[in-house]
């Protein structure tokens, strides 16, 4: 079995790591570090009571990763608390998306998951109010570049990222789950309608379980960087379906919802790859076309701890998927001007900025 395939097995059943030879364990640890999965492995081996059987470098490496993941989770949950306070007394709800939602709900998949930033969803009409309130409470916009501002505000599904002046966590404020310029336009009003408050915490909300699944599907196929976080997105989906899937009627509601949001095609594809890579119990679904099957199968898993040493076919597949995700993000004309603009800016910086002119 290749390293990457073993990685998937071990992520599903962490106790299997203890059966491998020490050099194999080290290779897997390095792969898992690359995809940000040390925390879940440590959790799994701790629950299985197997940490003590591992060689010291493996045990310590996992523990180091777990400490970082736990600390990120703490900062994200603290950020939720601060947002709740900033929005207190306004009509703005705190609706958590992705990692922050999984952590706030205490889902099993959140254990040790390495989180980077916090994402929330608001009605587009409420964005000016939200920005005003956040500024009043110490949040600042991270970019001041006029083109970047324009890019986010006119075309994207989120505001330019904000950050509190005393804390490092980035805050992404979404008004939709896909860019305004994209091919697919799921209706945010539907998502907001079905949002659910946290038990015992009426100011903090998450999306309904079916919507969380569909958001993760969109994330995987439209927003992933296949070199870095696609595997995490896939494992998020696996965790969500294992947790919510057994609820009676979940499959039917999921399909009905995907039709209402026009997301049936990506849902079919996601279910196919979940079954294939994670053996997730999933509802009936169609197989995606041969090209997507090939590209995603190649691009999903890391070959080597050093990204530069992934095989050529893998890198080529990732590049194709990168191009595809941009193609889906913007109409061709806009994409062309956007890329030209970005490229020009980079070139100018390179040639002139460095000379101090």
């Amino acid at each position, binding site marked *: 079995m290749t390293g990457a395939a073993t990685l998937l097995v071990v992520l599903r059943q962490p106790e299997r790591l203890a059966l491998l*030879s*020490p*050099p194999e*364990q*080290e290779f897997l640890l*390095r792969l898992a*570090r*690359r995809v940000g999965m040390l925390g879940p492995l440590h959790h799994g081996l701790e629950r299985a009571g197997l940490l003590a059987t591992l*060689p*010291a*470098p*493996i045990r*310590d*490496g996992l*523990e*180091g*990763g777990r*400490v*970082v993941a*736990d*600390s990120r989770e*703490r900062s994200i949950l603290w950020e939720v608390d601060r947002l709740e306070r900033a929005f207190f007394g306004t009509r703005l709800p705190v609706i958590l998306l992705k990692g922050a939602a999984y952590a706030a709900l205490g889902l099993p998949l959140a254990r040790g998951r390495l989180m980077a930033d916090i994402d929330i969803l608001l009605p587009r009409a409420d964005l000016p109010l939200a920005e005003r309130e956040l500024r009043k409470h110490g949040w600042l916009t991270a970019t001041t570049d006029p083109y970047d501002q324009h890019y986010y505000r006119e075309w994207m599904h989120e505001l330019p990222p904000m950050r509190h002046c005393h804390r490092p966590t980035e805050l992404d404020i979404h008004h939709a789950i896909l860019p305004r310029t994209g091919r697919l336009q799921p209706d945010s009003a539907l998502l907001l309608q079905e949002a659910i408050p946290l038990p015992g915490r009426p100011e903090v909300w998450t999306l309904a379980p079916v919507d969380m699944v569909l958001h993760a599907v969109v994330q995987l196929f439209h927003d992933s960087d296949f070199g870095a976080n696609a595997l995490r997105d896939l494992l998020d989906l696996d965790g969500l379906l294992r947790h919510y899937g057994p609820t009676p009627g979940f499959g039917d509601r999921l399909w009905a919802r995907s039709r209402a949001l026009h997301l049936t095609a990506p849902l079919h594809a996601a279910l196919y790859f979940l079954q294939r890579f994670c053996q997730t119990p999933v509802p009936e679904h169609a197989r995606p076309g041969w090209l997507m099957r090939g590209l995603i199968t190649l691009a999903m898993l890391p070959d080597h*701890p*050093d*990204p*530069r*040493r992934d095989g050529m076919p893998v890198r080529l597949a990732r590049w194709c998927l990168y191009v595809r995700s941009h193609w889906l993000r913007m109409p061709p004309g806009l994409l062309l001007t956007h890329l030209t603009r970005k490229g020009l800016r980079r070139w100018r910086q390179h040639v002139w900025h460095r000379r101090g002119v």
Partner: protein
Amino acid sequence: MKIGTLTPGETARRLKSRDGLAWRAGPFVVSLRADVPAFPEQFHLLYGEHRLAEEIGKTNDFRLELARPWGLRRWWRPKVFFEMDGPTRMAPFPLDHALPLFEWGFNYAIATRANQYLLLHAAVVAQGERALLLPGLPGSGKSTLCAALVLRGWRLLSDEFGLLRPGSGELAPLPGSIALKNASIAVIRAFDPAAVLGPEFPKTRKGTVAHLRPPPESVQDQERVARPVWVVSPRFEAGAAARLVPLPRDHGFLRLAHNAFNYELQGERGFRAVTRMTRECRFFDLTFGDPGEAVALLDEMAAS
């Protein structure tokens, strides 16, 4: 088997090999690949007492590489990069500064990865299992004082990191070379003419650097953990008489918490570890102009 029992040629050959040369550095197994001229001899001199890792096992904590780029920069004003499972954020150094790049790179590797430890930014020496921490900002004289102490018989744990296990409250030794900067190179040469130093590297980002070889006994003792007993914040002041001033414990707590690289990251276990150290240690400020006087004062402190 020790690195020193290899010939310099064999050291160079192993550094060039696919899996690199692996050795035991305190609690870590480190493997290093480097195909860089002059580096193997310097490394062989400073790390001769360290045990090779082949007898220990086949897993490493760190896989490090000093990599030379292909293309122009391999030949013209050649550079060398520090890598760890791919590129890192360390800026490249000129090729003939590979040793300082390795030393700083290894520190970077520990600071970014070894979060199983509370990482105190301090030189650490010990008498037996009683450890003295010397936390200090760059320029405080921490490395100079640490060098002087180990040349007078204190055991070297580390000149850069106090590796504290939050669970046990013990400090793991990591005896490597001590990086002396600028004026302190001459100070240490004068302090002990028998001190073994590597070559001087001028014009690094911290000025001129030379590395003091760790005492062989400290390296042989590198698996013997120690408990923190004294925390002394040094401050070098030209011409000043050595003075050791006790500090109240509440100051001590803040000193330690602010000094750790990853205090916030550790969360509750970091708080508990620092609380425990605050309870168990004595805290001092030390002003000194002459390392000999400072060592005498600290010897006296340890004896009392």
